């Protein structure tokens, strides 16, 4: 395991790896998303209370999972960046933030669309909704901060520090529906004592979640390549400029 970490720690080696891995992540994503969509739209039962609107769940729940998982991943990477100064960790954290913000927005919007027919309202100030909204604001603050620095290296490190300060919001989101008795339903898949959701709904949900995960991987790889290219271009430019001056 440590060997893999060390092997991929070299940015140019990682760039080659990401270029090779990118098409595969796209392929796996399209397989999961297409089968998942077929299952969730045509081959899963409607809910006995909510009817067909329950199908929003197959987008809403994976997006919400991803929103939290990406922040968790960013937290781990920030610890790596600050404690061991891993050269790629802060870049990974920086490149994940816009994707996480996107998933959070998708979760909020689909949740709102789902809330109108089932709860009768677009928005309630319930614990889960509020904390996910705060998560979105933290993501946006992170993106703004990182881009305020002129130096990419400093910006990515600053983002890592901010990620750790915001990380205490994560357990609040996960357990908000268990701690407070609010409108949003408690967890029914990821909880102690096994999932309480029927297998016919579970299968498309897992497929969509895996599809979303590989979607995240492929976007992350593209973001990483862009970031590494920008850094390399700047270095080349400085090198060229300093060589010219010496003549």
């Amino acid at each position: 395991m440590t060997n893999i970490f060390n092997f991929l720690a070299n940015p140019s080696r990682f760039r080659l790896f990401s270029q090779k891995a990118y098409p595969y992540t796209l392929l796996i994503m399209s397989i999961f998303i297409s089968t998942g969509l077929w299952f969730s739209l045509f081959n899963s039962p409607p809910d006995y209370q909510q009817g067909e609107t329950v199908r929003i769940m197959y987008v809403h729940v994976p997006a919400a999972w991803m929103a939290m998982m990406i922040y968790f991943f960013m937290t781990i990477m920030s610890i790596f960046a600050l404690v061991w100064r891993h050269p790629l960790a802060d870049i990974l954290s920086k490149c994940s933030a816009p994707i996480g913000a996107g998933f959070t927005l998708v979760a909020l919007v689909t949740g709102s669309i789902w809330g109108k027919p089932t709860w009768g309202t677009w928005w309630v100030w319930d614990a889960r909704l509020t904390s996910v909204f705060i998560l979105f604001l933290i993501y946006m603050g992170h993106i703004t901060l990182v881009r305020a620095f002129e130096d990419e290296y400093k910006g990515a490190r600053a983002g890592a520090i901010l990620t750790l300060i915001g990380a205490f919001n994560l357990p609040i989101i996960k357990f908000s529906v268990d701690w407070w008795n609010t409108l949003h339903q408690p967890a029914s898949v990821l909880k102690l004592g096994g999932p309480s959701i029927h297998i016919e709904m579970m299968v498309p949900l897992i497929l969509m979640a895996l599809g979303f995960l590989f979607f995240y991987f492929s976007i992350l790889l593209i973001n990483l390549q862009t970031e590494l290219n920008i850094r390399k271009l700047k270095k080349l430019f400085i090198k060229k400029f300093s060589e010219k001056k010496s003549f």
Partner: protein
Amino acid sequence: MKKFNRLIIRDIHIVVKGASDAGAALLFYLLAIIMFPLSSGTDATLLTSIAGGAIWVAALFSSLLSLDRLFRSDFEDGSLEQIVLSGISLETIVLSKCFAHWLTNGLPIVILSPILSLIIGLDFSYWWILGLSLLLGTPSLTLIGATPAALSCAIGKGGVLTALIILPLMLPVLILGSGAITAEISGLGGIGHIYALAAILPLSLLAVPFLASKALRLGWE
């Protein structure tokens, strides 16, 4: 410990001389509270229901305004660097700065709030829950805001950006603090919120000195 005290006395001295805007932040707190009755009407029952939230929002903005200057002046004129060179660890300096900020901003707010709750229409029998939530909440506000304040020094510009970063991080404290008062008024008992606030304070006390000094060192790189 002697050095720690001296650092705090130095910061308080700066505030008393008027060289920092901590006094202005306190005045802002009074002004912000007056805004609520003036904007949403002087109806007594309405005021009672928003009083806790109004006091908490005013406290949060007052803290936010003064936090932007927490490290900035010392960072820019180089005195922070000199204090570090004198052999005091940066983590200690961060803690002393936060403590001095709380003494000059948080503590006056805690003391003033029971009096102000009278003019905004909160029943005086709730003064203890208001005071307790502010006593536990304002140090957390200072500590949570310290790291973004240090980061804004590293960028070199502050203002709106600092507020944009700090505000979402402070929201859980605001929700719990004003929630304690609303829960107490509605008869549910606000002590659960107080427990949660009491948990946030030691957690931020542990994490913040480390992270804020990381952020300040980033500015020196």
